[in-house]
Protein backbone atom coordinates (compact mmCIF):
# COMPACT_ATOMS: atom_id res chain seq x y z
CA UNK A 1 0.00 0.00 0.00
CA UNK A 2 1.53 3.27 -1.09
CA UNK A 3 0.77 6.49 0.73
CA UNK A 4 3.50 8.62 -0.75
CA UNK A 5 2.73 12.19 -1.39
CA UNK A 6 3.86 13.72 -4.64
CA UNK A 7 4.25 17.38 -5.42
CA UNK A 8 2.60 18.69 -8.54
CA UNK A 9 2.90 22.31 -9.61
CA UNK A 10 -0.18 23.99 -11.00
CA UNK A 11 0.67 27.34 -12.58
CA UNK A 12 3.94 27.03 -10.63
CA UNK A 13 2.12 26.69 -7.31
CA UNK A 14 3.00 23.46 -5.43
CA UNK A 15 0.24 21.07 -4.51
CA UNK A 16 0.93 17.96 -2.41
CA UNK A 17 -1.29 15.07 -3.38
CA UNK A 18 -1.49 11.35 -2.79
CA UNK A 19 0.24 9.14 -5.35
CA UNK A 20 -2.34 7.66 -7.71
CA UNK A 21 -4.48 10.75 -8.11
CA UNK A 22 -5.08 12.35 -11.45
CA UNK A 23 -4.76 15.68 -13.21
CA UNK A 24 -8.36 16.57 -12.34
CA UNK A 25 -7.54 16.25 -8.63
CA UNK A 26 -4.63 18.64 -8.99
CA UNK A 27 -6.46 21.33 -10.93
CA UNK A 28 -9.77 21.14 -9.05
CA UNK A 29 -13.36 20.66 -10.10
CA UNK A 30 -13.88 24.10 -11.58
CA UNK A 31 -10.90 23.98 -13.93
CA UNK A 32 -11.68 20.35 -14.77
CA UNK A 33 -15.12 21.35 -15.96
CA UNK A 34 -13.68 24.20 -18.00
CA UNK A 35 -11.16 21.90 -19.66
CA UNK A 36 -13.83 19.29 -20.40
CA UNK A 37 -16.00 21.90 -22.11
CA UNK A 38 -12.98 23.27 -24.04
CA UNK A 39 -13.01 26.61 -22.24
CA UNK A 40 -9.51 25.93 -20.94
CA UNK A 41 -6.47 23.80 -21.56
CA UNK A 42 -4.05 22.13 -19.24
CA UNK A 43 -0.52 21.68 -20.56
CA UNK A 44 2.72 20.29 -19.22
CA UNK A 45 6.05 22.08 -19.10
CA UNK A 46 6.76 21.11 -22.71
CA UNK A 47 3.47 22.63 -23.84
CA UNK A 48 1.83 19.26 -24.45
CA UNK A 49 -1.90 19.17 -23.82
CA UNK A 50 -2.82 16.77 -20.98
CA UNK A 51 -6.14 15.01 -20.49
CA UNK A 52 -7.78 15.60 -17.08
CA UNK A 53 -7.81 11.89 -16.28
CA UNK A 54 -4.09 11.49 -16.87
CA UNK A 55 -1.95 10.10 -14.07
CA UNK A 56 0.12 12.59 -12.11
CA UNK A 57 3.83 12.19 -11.37
CA UNK A 58 6.07 13.78 -8.79
CA UNK A 59 7.39 17.12 -9.97
CA UNK A 60 4.92 17.45 -12.82
CA UNK A 61 4.21 21.00 -13.86
CA UNK A 62 0.77 21.82 -15.18
CA UNK A 63 -0.27 25.12 -16.69
CA UNK A 64 -3.87 26.19 -17.03
CA UNK A 65 -5.00 28.70 -19.60
CA UNK A 66 -8.36 29.81 -20.94
CA UNK A 67 -9.35 28.80 -24.43
CA UNK A 68 -11.96 29.80 -26.98
CA UNK A 69 -14.25 26.75 -27.20
CA UNK A 70 -15.47 27.79 -30.64
CA UNK A 71 -12.01 27.07 -32.04
CA UNK A 72 -11.78 23.55 -30.71
CA UNK A 73 -13.85 21.75 -33.34
CA UNK A 74 -12.09 23.50 -36.22
CA UNK A 75 -8.70 22.73 -34.71
CA UNK A 76 -9.67 19.07 -34.46
CA UNK A 77 -10.63 19.05 -38.14
CA UNK A 78 -7.40 20.81 -39.12
CA UNK A 79 -5.32 18.23 -37.29
CA UNK A 80 -7.19 15.24 -38.67
Amino acid at each position, binding site marked *: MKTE*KITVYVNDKPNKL*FFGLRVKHAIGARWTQRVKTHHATVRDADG*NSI*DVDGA*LYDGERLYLAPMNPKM*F*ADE*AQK*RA
Partner: protein
Amino acid sequence: MSKPIIVLIACLVLILVACASTTPTPVPPTPTPPPPTPAGPLTVTLLHTNDMHGYLEGEKMKGGDGTVFEFGGIPTALGTIARLRQEAPGPVMVFDVGDLWVGTFASNRDQGKTTIAAMNLIGYDAMTLGNHDFDQGVDVVKARAAEAKFPILIANIVEVASNQVPGWAKPYIVKEVGGIRFGIIGLGYAGTPAISSKVKELQVFKFVDELETAKRVLPEVKGKADIVVVVSHAGFDRDQLIAAAVPGIDVIVGGHTHAELRQPKVVGNTIIVQAGAKGQAVGKLELKIDPATKKVVDYTKNNALVSAVSNKAATPPEVTEMLTKVIADGRAATARVIGETQIDLTRAYTADGRSTGEYPSGNLVVDAMLWANQAGDKPADLAMHNNAGIRTDIPKGPITYGKLYEMLPFDNVLTAMDLTGAQIKAILEIAASCPRVNTLIAGMSFAYDCSKPGGQRVSKMMIRGKPVEPDKVYRVQTIDYLATGGDGQTPFKEGKHLIYGEPVVDVVAAYVAKNSPVNPKVEGRIVETK
Protein backbone atom coordinates in the same frame (compact mmCIF):
# COMPACT_ATOMS: atom_id res chain seq x y z
CA MET B 1 46.07 -22.54 -113.01
CA SER B 2 44.65 -25.98 -113.45
CA LYS B 3 41.11 -26.66 -112.38
CA PRO B 4 42.05 -29.01 -109.52
CA ILE B 5 44.31 -26.39 -108.00
CA ILE B 6 41.59 -23.75 -108.25
CA VAL B 7 39.20 -26.12 -106.49
CA LEU B 8 41.83 -26.81 -103.84
CA ILE B 9 42.41 -23.11 -103.23
CA ALA B 10 38.64 -22.52 -103.09
CA CYS B 11 38.25 -25.30 -100.57
CA LEU B 12 41.06 -23.87 -98.50
CA VAL B 13 39.39 -20.46 -98.61
CA LEU B 14 36.08 -21.99 -97.65
CA ILE B 15 37.71 -23.86 -94.81
CA LEU B 16 39.39 -20.69 -93.64
CA VAL B 17 36.12 -18.79 -93.82
CA ALA B 18 34.30 -21.56 -91.96
CA CYS B 19 36.92 -21.59 -89.25
CA ALA B 20 36.75 -17.85 -88.98
CA SER B 21 32.99 -17.96 -88.62
CA THR B 22 33.04 -20.63 -85.86
CA THR B 23 35.86 -19.25 -83.93
CA PRO B 24 34.44 -16.66 -81.63
CA THR B 25 35.91 -13.38 -82.21
CA PRO B 26 37.34 -12.26 -78.98
CA VAL B 27 35.43 -9.29 -77.83
CA PRO B 28 36.37 -7.07 -75.07
CA PRO B 29 34.69 -8.14 -71.75
CA THR B 30 31.36 -6.54 -71.10
CA PRO B 31 32.00 -3.68 -68.76
CA THR B 32 30.83 -4.41 -65.22
CA PRO B 33 27.60 -2.53 -64.78
CA PRO B 34 27.84 0.17 -62.19
CA PRO B 35 26.52 -0.85 -58.78
CA PRO B 36 22.79 -0.18 -58.48
CA THR B 37 21.95 3.15 -56.92
CA PRO B 38 21.01 2.33 -53.28
CA ALA B 39 17.25 2.52 -52.65
CA GLY B 40 16.15 5.53 -50.60
CA PRO B 41 15.29 5.19 -46.96
CA LEU B 42 12.48 2.80 -46.11
CA THR B 43 9.57 4.54 -44.38
CA VAL B 44 7.92 2.48 -41.67
CA THR B 45 4.97 4.15 -39.95
CA LEU B 46 4.14 3.42 -36.33
CA LEU B 47 0.51 4.12 -35.49
CA HIS B 48 -0.42 4.05 -31.81
CA THR B 49 -3.24 4.54 -29.34
CA ASN B 50 -3.20 4.62 -25.56
CA ASP B 51 -5.60 5.04 -22.64
CA MET B 52 -8.76 4.71 -24.68
CA HIS B 53 -10.56 3.78 -21.43
CA GLY B 54 -13.60 2.23 -23.02
CA TYR B 55 -14.74 5.45 -24.66
CA LEU B 56 -16.98 3.78 -27.22
CA GLU B 57 -18.46 7.13 -28.16
CA GLY B 58 -16.72 10.34 -28.96
CA GLU B 59 -17.86 13.87 -28.36
CA LYS B 60 -20.42 15.32 -30.78
CA MET B 61 -19.12 18.49 -32.37
CA LYS B 62 -19.94 21.00 -35.04
CA GLY B 63 -17.32 22.88 -36.96
CA GLY B 64 -17.49 26.48 -38.06
CA ASP B 65 -18.48 25.31 -41.54
CA GLY B 66 -21.40 23.32 -40.15
CA THR B 67 -19.69 19.92 -40.35
CA VAL B 68 -21.13 17.69 -37.67
CA PHE B 69 -18.79 14.99 -36.48
CA GLU B 70 -17.75 12.87 -33.57
CA PHE B 71 -14.41 13.68 -31.97
CA GLY B 72 -12.52 10.81 -30.44
CA GLY B 73 -13.86 7.51 -29.19
CA ILE B 74 -12.65 4.05 -30.05
CA PRO B 75 -14.60 3.57 -33.31
CA THR B 76 -13.28 6.84 -34.72
CA ALA B 77 -9.74 6.13 -33.52
CA LEU B 78 -9.80 2.69 -35.16
CA GLY B 79 -11.19 4.24 -38.33
CA THR B 80 -8.40 6.80 -38.29
CA ILE B 81 -5.88 3.97 -38.08
CA ALA B 82 -7.54 2.30 -41.05
CA ARG B 83 -7.32 5.52 -43.06
CA LEU B 84 -3.71 6.24 -42.09
CA ARG B 85 -2.74 2.71 -43.02
CA GLN B 86 -4.17 3.22 -46.49
CA GLU B 87 -2.30 6.51 -46.85
CA ALA B 88 1.03 5.30 -45.48
CA PRO B 89 3.98 5.39 -47.91
CA GLY B 90 5.30 2.04 -46.72
CA PRO B 91 4.82 -0.66 -44.11
CA VAL B 92 2.82 0.11 -40.99
CA MET B 93 2.80 -1.27 -37.46
CA VAL B 94 0.00 -0.55 -34.98
CA PHE B 95 0.32 -0.58 -31.19
CA ASP B 96 -1.89 0.05 -28.20
CA VAL B 97 -0.36 1.03 -24.87
CA GLY B 98 -3.04 -0.19 -22.49
CA ASP B 99 -5.80 1.12 -20.22
CA LEU B 100 -7.99 0.03 -23.08
CA TRP B 101 -11.51 -0.89 -22.01
CA VAL B 102 -12.19 0.09 -18.38
CA GLY B 103 -13.75 3.52 -17.93
CA THR B 104 -17.33 3.63 -19.21
CA PHE B 105 -20.40 1.70 -18.20
CA ALA B 106 -20.99 0.04 -21.56
CA SER B 107 -17.38 -0.97 -22.06
CA ASN B 108 -17.00 -2.16 -18.47
CA ARG B 109 -20.04 -4.40 -19.00
CA ASP B 110 -18.52 -5.78 -22.20
CA GLN B 111 -15.17 -6.30 -20.41
CA GLY B 112 -13.33 -5.22 -23.51
CA LYS B 113 -14.35 -8.27 -25.55
CA THR B 114 -15.79 -6.32 -28.45
CA THR B 115 -13.02 -3.73 -28.44
CA ILE B 116 -10.41 -6.46 -28.79
CA ALA B 117 -12.45 -8.00 -31.63
CA ALA B 118 -12.55 -4.62 -33.34
CA MET B 119 -8.80 -4.22 -32.93
CA ASN B 120 -8.35 -7.65 -34.51
CA LEU B 121 -10.26 -6.42 -37.56
CA ILE B 122 -8.17 -3.26 -37.78
CA GLY B 123 -4.98 -5.26 -37.46
CA TYR B 124 -3.02 -4.27 -34.37
CA ASP B 125 0.50 -5.68 -34.10
CA ALA B 126 0.94 -5.64 -30.32
CA MET B 127 -0.35 -4.19 -27.10
CA THR B 128 0.87 -3.73 -23.55
CA LEU B 129 -1.30 -3.55 -20.43
CA GLY B 130 -2.09 -0.52 -18.33
CA ASN B 131 -2.96 -0.52 -14.63
CA HIS B 132 -6.71 -0.29 -15.32
CA ASP B 133 -6.67 -3.32 -17.60
CA PHE B 134 -6.42 -5.33 -14.36
CA ASP B 135 -9.45 -3.63 -12.75
CA GLN B 136 -11.82 -6.45 -13.63
CA GLY B 137 -9.48 -9.19 -12.53
CA VAL B 138 -6.83 -11.38 -14.04
CA ASP B 139 -9.30 -13.84 -15.61
CA VAL B 140 -10.68 -11.05 -17.78
CA VAL B 141 -7.16 -10.11 -18.90
CA LYS B 142 -6.44 -13.74 -19.75
CA ALA B 143 -9.66 -14.01 -21.75
CA ARG B 144 -8.87 -10.85 -23.74
CA ALA B 145 -5.31 -12.04 -24.36
CA ALA B 146 -6.64 -15.32 -25.72
CA GLU B 147 -9.01 -13.52 -28.08
CA ALA B 148 -6.49 -10.98 -29.34
CA LYS B 149 -4.87 -11.83 -32.67
CA PHE B 150 -1.88 -9.79 -31.58
CA PRO B 151 0.48 -10.47 -28.67
CA ILE B 152 0.18 -8.89 -25.24
CA LEU B 153 3.69 -7.70 -24.45
CA ILE B 154 4.67 -7.10 -20.83
CA ALA B 155 8.25 -7.85 -19.83
CA ASN B 156 7.98 -6.48 -16.27
CA ILE B 157 5.19 -8.61 -14.85
CA VAL B 158 6.17 -12.09 -13.69
CA GLU B 159 4.23 -14.76 -11.89
CA VAL B 160 5.52 -15.10 -8.33
CA ALA B 161 5.29 -18.89 -8.58
CA SER B 162 7.40 -19.28 -11.71
CA ASN B 163 9.25 -15.97 -11.94
CA GLN B 164 8.25 -15.97 -15.59
CA VAL B 165 6.10 -13.68 -17.68
CA PRO B 166 2.58 -15.18 -17.62
CA GLY B 167 1.81 -17.66 -20.37
CA TRP B 168 -0.81 -15.37 -21.90
CA ALA B 169 1.82 -12.66 -22.55
CA LYS B 170 5.31 -12.29 -23.94
CA PRO B 171 8.11 -9.97 -22.88
CA TYR B 172 8.89 -9.02 -26.46
CA ILE B 173 8.55 -10.03 -30.08
CA VAL B 174 10.74 -9.57 -33.12
CA LYS B 175 8.89 -8.65 -36.28
CA GLU B 176 10.42 -8.23 -39.71
CA VAL B 177 8.95 -5.35 -41.63
CA GLY B 178 10.35 -4.29 -45.00
CA GLY B 179 13.48 -6.28 -44.36
CA ILE B 180 14.09 -4.57 -41.01
CA ARG B 181 13.85 -6.57 -37.79
CA PHE B 182 11.87 -4.66 -35.16
CA GLY B 183 12.25 -5.76 -31.55
CA ILE B 184 9.11 -4.69 -29.67
CA ILE B 185 9.27 -4.79 -25.87
CA GLY B 186 6.22 -4.27 -23.64
CA LEU B 187 6.35 -2.53 -20.25
CA GLY B 188 3.32 -2.37 -17.97
CA TYR B 189 2.91 0.07 -15.09
CA ALA B 190 5.02 -1.15 -12.20
CA GLY B 191 2.96 0.85 -9.69
CA THR B 192 -0.25 -1.03 -10.55
CA PRO B 193 -0.63 -2.86 -7.20
CA ALA B 194 -0.34 0.43 -5.30
CA ILE B 195 -3.33 1.96 -7.04
CA SER B 196 -5.40 -0.99 -8.17
CA SER B 197 -8.72 -2.06 -6.71
CA LYS B 198 -7.62 -5.68 -7.27
CA VAL B 199 -4.60 -5.47 -4.98
CA LYS B 200 -5.13 -8.90 -3.40
CA GLU B 201 -5.69 -10.72 -6.70
CA LEU B 202 -2.58 -9.10 -8.15
CA GLN B 203 -0.39 -10.61 -5.43
CA VAL B 204 0.19 -13.59 -7.73
CA PHE B 205 2.33 -11.26 -9.84
CA LYS B 206 5.46 -9.33 -9.19
CA PHE B 207 5.44 -5.95 -10.93
CA VAL B 208 9.05 -5.08 -11.65
CA ASP B 209 10.42 -1.59 -12.09
CA GLU B 210 10.19 -0.57 -15.74
CA LEU B 211 13.70 0.85 -16.00
CA GLU B 212 15.28 -2.18 -14.39
CA THR B 213 13.40 -4.43 -16.82
CA ALA B 214 14.36 -2.38 -19.86
CA LYS B 215 18.04 -2.63 -18.86
CA ARG B 216 17.76 -6.38 -18.42
CA VAL B 217 15.80 -7.22 -21.57
CA LEU B 218 17.37 -4.83 -24.05
CA PRO B 219 20.65 -6.71 -24.72
CA GLU B 220 18.73 -9.86 -25.63
CA VAL B 221 16.43 -7.94 -27.98
CA LYS B 222 19.30 -5.97 -29.53
CA GLY B 223 20.90 -9.25 -30.47
CA LYS B 224 17.88 -10.14 -32.56
CA ALA B 225 16.64 -6.81 -33.88
CA ASP B 226 17.81 -3.85 -35.91
CA ILE B 227 15.44 -1.36 -34.33
CA VAL B 228 13.99 -1.47 -30.81
CA VAL B 229 10.56 -0.12 -29.94
CA VAL B 230 9.33 -0.13 -26.34
CA VAL B 231 5.55 0.00 -25.85
CA SER B 232 5.38 1.46 -22.34
CA HIS B 233 2.61 2.24 -19.86
CA ALA B 234 5.17 3.65 -17.42
CA GLY B 235 4.16 7.26 -17.97
CA PHE B 236 5.88 10.16 -19.71
CA ASP B 237 8.15 10.87 -16.75
CA ARG B 238 9.38 7.28 -16.50
CA ASP B 239 9.72 6.99 -20.29
CA GLN B 240 12.17 9.90 -20.22
CA LEU B 241 14.14 8.29 -17.40
CA ILE B 242 14.25 5.00 -19.29
CA ALA B 243 15.40 6.74 -22.46
CA ALA B 244 18.17 8.53 -20.57
CA ALA B 245 19.34 5.48 -18.64
CA VAL B 246 18.99 2.77 -21.28
CA PRO B 247 20.68 3.77 -24.53
CA GLY B 248 19.84 1.66 -27.52
CA ILE B 249 16.06 2.07 -27.55
CA ASP B 250 14.98 3.73 -30.77
CA VAL B 251 11.37 4.54 -29.90
CA ILE B 252 9.24 4.54 -26.74
CA VAL B 253 5.52 4.53 -27.47
CA GLY B 254 3.98 5.73 -24.21
CA GLY B 255 0.79 6.09 -22.21
CA HIS B 256 -0.63 6.43 -18.67
CA THR B 257 -0.10 10.18 -18.32
CA HIS B 258 -2.49 11.04 -21.19
CA ALA B 259 -0.09 13.48 -22.81
CA GLU B 260 -0.62 14.65 -26.39
CA LEU B 261 2.85 14.78 -27.86
CA ARG B 262 2.35 16.58 -31.16
CA GLN B 263 6.12 16.78 -31.33
CA PRO B 264 7.98 13.68 -30.20
CA LYS B 265 10.28 14.18 -27.25
CA VAL B 266 13.83 13.06 -27.91
CA VAL B 267 15.98 11.98 -25.00
CA GLY B 268 19.44 10.88 -26.04
CA ASN B 269 18.78 8.95 -29.23
CA THR B 270 15.34 7.76 -28.16
CA ILE B 271 12.17 9.13 -29.71
CA ILE B 272 9.29 9.26 -27.22
CA VAL B 273 5.68 9.56 -28.37
CA GLN B 274 2.24 9.46 -26.71
CA ALA B 275 -1.23 9.98 -28.14
CA GLY B 276 -3.33 11.63 -25.44
CA ALA B 277 -6.32 9.53 -24.40
CA LYS B 278 -9.89 8.43 -25.07
CA GLY B 279 -9.31 7.81 -28.76
CA GLN B 280 -9.08 11.54 -29.44
CA ALA B 281 -5.85 11.18 -31.36
CA VAL B 282 -3.85 8.50 -33.12
CA GLY B 283 -0.10 8.75 -32.97
CA LYS B 284 1.66 8.64 -36.32
CA LEU B 285 5.43 8.31 -36.24
CA GLU B 286 7.12 7.83 -39.61
CA LEU B 287 10.56 6.32 -39.28
CA LYS B 288 12.90 6.69 -42.22
CA ILE B 289 15.31 3.78 -42.10
CA ASP B 290 18.51 3.37 -44.10
CA PRO B 291 18.13 -0.09 -45.66
CA ALA B 292 21.92 -0.54 -45.71
CA THR B 293 22.68 0.32 -42.09
CA LYS B 294 19.15 -0.49 -40.86
CA LYS B 295 19.24 2.59 -38.66
CA VAL B 296 16.69 5.34 -38.26
CA VAL B 297 17.96 8.35 -40.20
CA ASP B 298 14.91 10.57 -39.89
CA TYR B 299 11.50 10.64 -38.24
CA THR B 300 8.37 12.73 -37.86
CA LYS B 301 9.29 15.85 -35.95
CA ASN B 302 5.97 17.70 -36.07
CA ASN B 303 2.33 16.69 -36.34
CA ALA B 304 3.00 13.29 -34.82
CA LEU B 305 -0.65 13.13 -33.74
CA VAL B 306 -3.69 12.89 -36.00
CA SER B 307 -7.00 13.97 -34.49
CA ALA B 308 -9.66 11.29 -34.66
CA VAL B 309 -12.71 12.83 -36.30
CA SER B 310 -15.49 10.66 -37.63
CA ASN B 311 -15.94 12.48 -40.94
CA LYS B 312 -12.36 11.63 -41.95
CA ALA B 313 -12.13 8.16 -40.44
CA ALA B 314 -12.38 4.99 -42.49
CA THR B 315 -14.05 2.90 -39.82
CA PRO B 316 -15.07 -0.44 -41.30
CA PRO B 317 -18.85 -0.91 -41.09
CA GLU B 318 -18.49 -4.12 -39.12
CA VAL B 319 -16.44 -2.29 -36.46
CA THR B 320 -19.07 0.44 -36.19
CA GLU B 321 -21.82 -2.15 -35.96
CA MET B 322 -20.19 -4.25 -33.26
CA LEU B 323 -19.28 -1.30 -31.04
CA THR B 324 -22.64 0.41 -31.56
CA LYS B 325 -24.29 -2.74 -30.25
CA VAL B 326 -22.19 -2.59 -27.07
CA ILE B 327 -23.29 1.02 -26.55
CA ALA B 328 -26.94 0.12 -27.11
CA ASP B 329 -26.71 -2.85 -24.74
CA GLY B 330 -25.17 -0.55 -22.13
CA ARG B 331 -27.98 1.96 -22.45
CA ALA B 332 -30.54 -0.80 -22.07
CA ALA B 333 -28.75 -2.08 -18.99
CA THR B 334 -28.81 1.31 -17.27
CA ALA B 335 -32.59 1.21 -17.55
CA ARG B 336 -32.89 -2.17 -15.90
CA VAL B 337 -34.14 -2.29 -12.33
CA ILE B 338 -31.42 -3.44 -9.94
CA GLY B 339 -33.35 -3.08 -6.72
CA GLU B 340 -35.94 -1.14 -4.85
CA THR B 341 -36.18 1.51 -2.17
CA GLN B 342 -38.97 1.48 0.37
CA ILE B 343 -38.62 5.20 1.03
CA ASP B 344 -37.98 8.33 -1.02
CA LEU B 345 -34.22 8.80 -1.31
CA THR B 346 -34.19 12.53 -0.69
CA ARG B 347 -31.81 15.15 0.63
CA ALA B 348 -32.15 17.72 3.40
CA TYR B 349 -31.36 21.40 2.87
CA THR B 350 -30.36 24.52 4.70
CA ALA B 351 -32.60 27.56 4.45
CA ASP B 352 -30.46 28.81 1.56
CA GLY B 353 -30.88 25.58 -0.35
CA ARG B 354 -27.65 23.67 0.27
CA SER B 355 -27.79 19.99 1.10
CA THR B 356 -26.82 19.32 4.67
CA GLY B 357 -26.53 16.73 7.39
CA GLU B 358 -28.06 13.29 7.40
CA TYR B 359 -30.64 12.23 4.84
CA PRO B 360 -31.85 9.03 3.15
CA SER B 361 -29.97 9.19 -0.16
CA GLY B 362 -26.79 10.12 1.68
CA ASN B 363 -27.21 7.29 4.16
CA LEU B 364 -27.66 4.86 1.29
CA VAL B 365 -24.36 5.96 -0.23
CA VAL B 366 -22.26 5.81 2.94
CA ASP B 367 -23.89 2.56 4.06
CA ALA B 368 -22.84 1.07 0.73
CA MET B 369 -19.33 2.46 1.12
CA LEU B 370 -19.02 0.94 4.59
CA TRP B 371 -20.33 -2.39 3.31
CA ALA B 372 -17.82 -2.49 0.46
CA ASN B 373 -14.27 -3.45 1.17
CA GLN B 374 -11.39 -3.29 -1.25
CA ALA B 375 -9.96 -6.76 -1.72
CA GLY B 376 -7.03 -7.20 0.60
CA ASP B 377 -7.97 -4.34 2.89
CA LYS B 378 -9.08 -4.57 6.50
CA PRO B 379 -12.75 -3.72 7.17
CA ALA B 380 -13.49 -0.04 7.50
CA ASP B 381 -14.64 1.42 10.82
CA LEU B 382 -16.60 4.23 9.21
CA ALA B 383 -17.45 5.82 5.89
CA MET B 384 -17.53 9.50 4.99
CA HIS B 385 -18.78 11.29 1.88
CA ASN B 386 -19.53 14.92 1.18
CA ASN B 387 -23.09 16.19 0.73
CA ALA B 388 -22.42 18.01 -2.52
CA GLY B 389 -21.53 14.76 -4.23
CA ILE B 390 -25.16 13.57 -4.13
CA ARG B 391 -26.92 15.34 -6.98
CA THR B 392 -30.48 14.00 -7.30
CA ASP B 393 -33.21 12.22 -5.39
CA ILE B 394 -34.70 8.82 -6.22
CA PRO B 395 -38.37 8.32 -5.43
CA LYS B 396 -39.70 5.31 -3.54
CA GLY B 397 -39.86 2.29 -5.83
CA PRO B 398 -37.51 0.78 -8.41
CA ILE B 399 -33.89 1.82 -8.64
CA THR B 400 -32.00 1.61 -11.93
CA TYR B 401 -28.27 2.04 -12.53
CA GLY B 402 -29.13 5.08 -14.61
CA LYS B 403 -30.86 6.74 -11.65
CA LEU B 404 -27.89 5.96 -9.41
CA TYR B 405 -25.55 7.49 -11.96
CA GLU B 406 -27.59 10.67 -12.00
CA MET B 407 -27.37 10.72 -8.21
CA LEU B 408 -23.58 10.13 -8.25
CA PRO B 409 -22.27 11.58 -11.52
CA PHE B 410 -18.74 12.57 -10.49
CA ASP B 411 -16.89 9.29 -11.10
CA ASN B 412 -15.51 9.32 -7.57
CA VAL B 413 -13.75 6.16 -6.47
CA LEU B 414 -13.66 4.55 -3.07
CA THR B 415 -10.52 5.46 -1.14
CA ALA B 416 -9.68 3.79 2.15
CA MET B 417 -7.20 5.33 4.56
CA ASP B 418 -6.11 5.36 8.18
CA LEU B 419 -7.01 8.44 10.19
CA THR B 420 -6.69 9.08 13.89
CA GLY B 421 -9.60 10.05 16.09
CA ALA B 422 -8.16 13.58 16.31
CA GLN B 423 -8.02 13.85 12.51
CA ILE B 424 -11.61 12.63 12.23
CA LYS B 425 -12.69 15.28 14.74
CA ALA B 426 -10.86 17.91 12.69
CA ILE B 427 -12.76 16.76 9.62
CA LEU B 428 -16.08 16.98 11.43
CA GLU B 429 -15.25 20.46 12.77
CA ILE B 430 -14.60 21.65 9.19
CA ALA B 431 -17.82 19.96 8.07
CA ALA B 432 -19.81 21.72 10.81
CA SER B 433 -19.52 25.08 9.11
CA CYS B 434 -23.02 26.03 10.35
CA PRO B 435 -25.73 26.31 9.48
CA ARG B 436 -24.60 23.62 7.05
CA VAL B 437 -23.03 20.32 8.06
CA ASN B 438 -21.25 19.03 5.00
CA THR B 439 -20.67 15.37 5.72
CA LEU B 440 -22.42 12.05 5.39
CA ILE B 441 -21.34 9.27 7.75
CA ALA B 442 -21.87 5.60 8.37
CA GLY B 443 -20.52 3.59 11.27
CA MET B 444 -20.35 6.67 13.48
CA SER B 445 -22.42 9.43 15.02
CA PHE B 446 -21.74 12.86 16.48
CA ALA B 447 -23.44 15.99 17.75
CA TYR B 448 -22.72 19.60 16.82
CA ASP B 449 -23.65 22.94 18.36
CA CYS B 450 -23.76 25.92 16.03
CA SER B 451 -23.79 28.34 19.00
CA LYS B 452 -20.18 27.43 19.69
CA PRO B 453 -17.24 28.97 17.79
CA GLY B 454 -15.84 27.17 14.76
CA GLY B 455 -13.50 24.32 15.69
CA GLN B 456 -15.36 23.69 18.97
CA ARG B 457 -18.75 22.58 17.74
CA VAL B 458 -18.42 18.79 17.60
CA SER B 459 -19.06 16.43 20.49
CA LYS B 460 -20.32 12.95 21.41
CA MET B 461 -18.38 11.27 18.62
CA MET B 462 -18.99 7.54 18.56
CA ILE B 463 -17.52 4.96 16.18
CA ARG B 464 -19.07 1.52 16.20
CA GLY B 465 -20.85 2.45 19.41
CA LYS B 466 -17.69 3.48 21.31
CA PRO B 467 -16.37 6.97 22.11
CA VAL B 468 -13.76 8.13 19.62
CA GLU B 469 -10.24 8.10 21.01
CA PRO B 470 -8.01 10.91 19.66
CA ASP B 471 -4.88 8.80 19.21
CA LYS B 472 -6.52 5.63 18.00
CA VAL B 473 -6.18 4.81 14.30
CA TYR B 474 -9.41 4.14 12.44
CA ARG B 475 -9.86 2.75 8.94
CA VAL B 476 -11.97 5.24 7.01
CA GLN B 477 -13.71 4.61 3.72
CA THR B 478 -14.02 7.84 1.77
CA ILE B 479 -13.71 9.05 -1.82
CA ASP B 480 -10.75 10.25 -3.88
CA TYR B 481 -12.19 13.77 -4.05
CA LEU B 482 -12.04 14.14 -0.27
CA ALA B 483 -8.60 12.50 -0.21
CA THR B 484 -7.34 15.50 -2.19
CA GLY B 485 -8.67 17.83 0.51
CA GLY B 486 -11.78 18.64 -1.48
CA ASP B 487 -14.46 20.81 0.13
CA GLY B 488 -11.73 22.29 2.32
CA GLN B 489 -11.20 18.96 4.06
CA THR B 490 -7.41 19.16 4.37
CA PRO B 491 -7.14 16.61 7.25
CA PHE B 492 -7.92 13.86 4.75
CA LYS B 493 -4.60 14.68 3.07
CA GLU B 494 -2.82 13.34 6.18
CA GLY B 495 -4.35 9.91 5.80
CA LYS B 496 -2.08 6.88 5.63
CA HIS B 497 -2.06 3.51 3.89
CA LEU B 498 -4.36 4.47 1.04
CA ILE B 499 -6.07 1.89 -1.08
CA TYR B 500 -8.18 2.93 -4.06
CA GLY B 501 -11.33 0.95 -4.84
CA GLU B 502 -14.23 0.75 -7.22
CA PRO B 503 -16.24 3.73 -8.47
CA VAL B 504 -18.71 4.73 -5.76
CA VAL B 505 -21.71 4.44 -8.09
CA ASP B 506 -20.82 0.81 -8.82
CA VAL B 507 -20.45 0.11 -5.12
CA VAL B 508 -23.88 1.60 -4.39
CA ALA B 509 -25.39 -0.39 -7.28
CA ALA B 510 -23.93 -3.62 -5.92
CA TYR B 511 -25.17 -2.77 -2.43
CA VAL B 512 -28.70 -2.07 -3.69
CA ALA B 513 -28.76 -5.29 -5.71
CA LYS B 514 -27.59 -7.31 -2.71
CA ASN B 515 -29.69 -5.64 -0.03
CA SER B 516 -32.88 -4.75 -1.88
CA PRO B 517 -35.34 -3.49 -0.77
CA VAL B 518 -33.32 -0.76 0.92
CA ASN B 519 -34.64 1.55 3.63
CA PRO B 520 -31.90 4.07 4.57
CA LYS B 521 -33.88 6.05 7.13
CA VAL B 522 -32.52 9.02 9.00
CA GLU B 523 -31.55 7.60 12.39
CA GLY B 524 -29.77 10.34 14.26
CA ARG B 525 -26.19 9.90 13.11
CA ILE B 526 -25.75 13.68 13.00
CA VAL B 527 -27.59 15.57 15.70
CA GLU B 528 -27.70 19.30 16.31
CA THR B 529 -27.62 20.26 19.96
CA LYS B 530 -28.64 23.69 21.08
